[in-house]
C-alpha cells in the first residue's frame, strides 16, 4: 500500500455554480521513502494540490476527492482534530519563501519547540535538547547561539534550514517541499536540496518536491509528474521522462530549457499562457498552445492512458522519436 494515495482530487474556488478548478481530478500516489517531483508552470495547481493534502485550503476553497488517504487513513473523513494530529507530525510541509515562513515575534527555539510540544510533548529541557539536535542536523553552525535568535537576524539560507528543522522535528513520513529553493540564490539552492535529500535518505522519509526547475528534479526525484492548468499531464520515472517525453507539453518544456537551446539564436519558449478561469478550453487544456493539436484535441478532453511506461493525458502520445502516434488529421 502506498503511503499517500490520491484519487480524483479536485480543488475549486469561487461560486458554486461557476467554480474555478485550480486542481482538476488529479490522481497519484507516493510510496514510502520515495522522492516524487512535481513540475509545472505557475498556476498549474502544484501548490494548491499540496495545500489540499495538508488540509490548508480554507473557505471559500472546496476540496473533494474520491480518496485522499495517508497510510491507509482517509484524511477527508476524519475529524479536524484528528487530522491536525497527522498534519505537522506525519506529513510536514515547507514553503517557498523562508524569510516569511518564520513568525517575526518568536525566537527560533520557540517556533521549533512548539511543533515538538504539540505532537510529542516532554519537558522543556527535553524539547530544548531535541531542538538543538535538529539545528545541528540541518547544518546550522553555532546552533546554540542561533536558538535564541529572532528570524530577522537570519539569512535566507539559514531561515530555510530552520524551516526544514521545524518540518522534520517530529520525524514525518512525508515531507512536502513547495519550491523550497525558489527564493534563495543559486549557491544556497544546491545546499538546501542536498540537505533535503540527505534527510530523506537518512530517515527513509517520502518527499514531494514541487518546483519549476526541471534540472533540479531530474537529479533528485525517482518519479516526476508534470502538471498543467490543474491537471496531471504526464507521470513517469525521471530518466524516462527526460529521455523520452510522451506528452507534447513535456517535450516543449524540455525544449525550453536553456541548455537545450544551443545553436538557436533565441531561447525556445512555449507560446501563450496557462488558461485561467475564463479562457479554459473545452477540449484538451493544452490545445491552444500545442503544436500537434487537431480538431479532436480542441473539442474533446483526453483521459489519462498508459503509454510506453508513462501515464499520459494525450490522444496522440509521442513515440521514441518524439513524433505523435496515431494522429490522422
Amino acid at each position, binding site marked *: 500500500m502506498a503511503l499517500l494515495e490520491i484519487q480524483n482530487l479536485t480543488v475549486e474556488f469561487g461560486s458554486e455554480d461557476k467554480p474555478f478548478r485550480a486542481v482538476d481530478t488529479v490522481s497519484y500516489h507516493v510510496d514510502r521513502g520515495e522522492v516524487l517531483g512535481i513540475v509545472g508552470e505557475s498556476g498549474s495547481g502544484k501548490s494548491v494540490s499540496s495545500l489540499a493534502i495538508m488540509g490548508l485550503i480554507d473557505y471559500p476553497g472546496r476540496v473533494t476527492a474520491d480518496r485522499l488517504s495517508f497510510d491507509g487513513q482517509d484524511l477527508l473523513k476524519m475529524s479536524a482534530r484528528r487530522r491536525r494530529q497527522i498534519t505537522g507530525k506525519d506529513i510536514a510541509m515547507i514553503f517557498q519563501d523562508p524569510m516569511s515562513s518564520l513568525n*517575526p515575534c518568536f525566537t527560533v527555539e520557540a517556533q521549533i519547540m512548539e511543533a515538538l510540544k504539540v505532537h510529542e510533548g516532554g519537558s522543556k529541557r527535553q524539547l530544548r535538547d531535541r531542538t538543538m539536535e535538529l539545528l545541528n542536523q540541518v547544518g546550522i553552525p553555532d546552533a546554540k547561539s542561533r536558538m535564541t535568535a529572532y528570524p530577522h537576524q537570519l539569512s535566507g539560507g539559514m531561515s530555510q534550514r530552520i524551516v526544514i528543522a521545524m518540518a522534520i522535528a517530529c520525524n514525518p513520513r512525508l515531507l512536502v517541499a513547495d519550491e523550497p529553493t525558489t527564493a534563495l540564490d543559486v549557491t544556497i539552492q544546491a545546499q538546501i536540496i542536498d540537505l533535503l535529500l540527505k534527510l530523506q535518505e537518512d530517515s527513509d522519509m517520502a518527499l514531494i518536491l514541487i518546483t519549476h526547475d526541471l534540472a533540479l528534479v531530474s537529479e533528485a526525484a525517482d518519479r516526476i509528474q508534470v502538471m498543467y492548468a490543474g491537471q496531471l499531464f504526464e507521470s513517469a520515472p525521471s530518466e524516462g521522462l527526460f529521455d523520452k517525453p510522451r506528452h507534447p507539453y513535456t517535450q516543449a518544456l524540455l525544449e525550453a530549457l536553456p541548455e537545450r537551446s544551443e545553436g538557436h539564436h533565441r531561447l525556445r519558449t512555449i507560446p501563450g499562457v496557462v488558461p485561467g478561469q475564463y479562457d479554459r478550453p473545452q477540449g484538451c487544456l493544452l490545445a491552444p498552445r500545442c503544436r500537434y493539436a487537431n480538431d479532436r484535441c480542441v473539442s474533446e478532453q483526453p483521459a489519462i492512458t498508459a503509454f510506453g511506461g508513462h501515464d499520459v493525458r494525450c490522444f496522440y502520445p509521442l513515440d521514441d522519436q518524439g513524433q505523435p502516434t496515431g494522429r490522422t488529421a
Partner: protein
Amino acid sequence: MLGFLLRRLGDIIPTFFGVTLLVFFLIRLIPGDPILMMAGERGVDAVRYAELQAQYGFDQPVIVQYYHYLVGVFQGDLGRSFVTKKPVFEEFMTLFPATVELSIMGILFAVIIGLPLGVIAAIKRGTIVDHTTMTISLTGYSMPIFWWALLLIMFFSTTLGWTPVSGRLSIFYYIEPVTGFMLIDTLISGEKGAFVSALRHLILPTIALGTIPMAVIARMTRSSMLEVLGEDYIRVARAKGLAPMRVIMVHALRNALIPVITVIGLQVGVLLAGAILTETIFSWPGIGKWIVEALGRRDYPTIQGGILMIAFLMMSVNLLVDLLYGVINPRIRHRR
C-alpha cells in the same frame, strides 16, 4: 536603549517650548478681558482697572509677559488662578485623578470590547458577523459624543433608572479623598454601598468616552489581523498542526497587535487630554471640565498651566508606547 531614551527626552524640550508659546499667544487672541470678567456685571472704574492691569502685569508688552511666565514655569510655578487664587498646579493635581479614573475605565472598555470585536470580524471576514461588527463600530465612531451621551442618559438613567445621571458619587456619601480615585477611596473608607455608587456613576461616562476609541481599536485590529492572517508564517503555523485558536491568539494576534498598540497609545493620550465633552455632560469634576470653565472666564494661568500639563502627559504616554513596542516587537528591540 539609554541613548534612545535620552534622544526622546531631548525631543520633549522643543515641543514644550512650542506648546507654551502657542497657548500663551493664542489665548490672548481670544476676545475678552480677564479683568473685566473678574469684575463681573458691575464693571470697574478706570483707576482700579489700571491698578489691576499693573498687578497682573497686563500693562507690559506681551513678550515680557511671556518671559515672566516662562521663568515661572522653569521654576515649577504655573501661576495662580485668577478666579480661585489657588496655585494652578495644585488645582490640577486635585482634579486630575478624576480624569485619570475615567480615562482608564474608558480605555479598558475600548480595549476589552474593541479588540475581540476586531479579531472576530477578521476571522469571520465577509460574513454577517463581520459586517455587523464593522457597522456597529462605524456608527460608534461617527456618533457625536454629546449626543450619544445624552441618549445614554435618557435611556439608562431617565427611562430605565439604572444609573445616576451625573456626578461621581451619590450625595448620601461623603468620602475623604486619599488617592483621588473614587473607586479606591470608597473601598478604603469602608462605607457600605459607596463603592457600588461610585461604580454606577462611572458606567455611562465610561461608555460615552470609550465608544470612539473602541470603534477605532476594533477597525484597526480587524485590518491588522487580516493582513497578518494572510502571512506565510500563519500557514506554516497551521501546517505544524496547531489548533486554530492557538494560531489566531498566539501567532496572529501578537503580530497584529503592533499597530494596534500605537492606536491604543494615541487614544489614551486623547482621553487624558480631557474628555471635555464627556466631563461637561456628566458633571465629572476632571480637568476637561476645569479647562472649559477656565476658558469661559479667561482664566489665563489655568488655561496655560492646564494645557501645558496635558501636553506633557501626551508626550509621556507616547514615549511609554514607544518603549512598549520593543516588548512585543523583537525587530525594534534589536535595532536600538
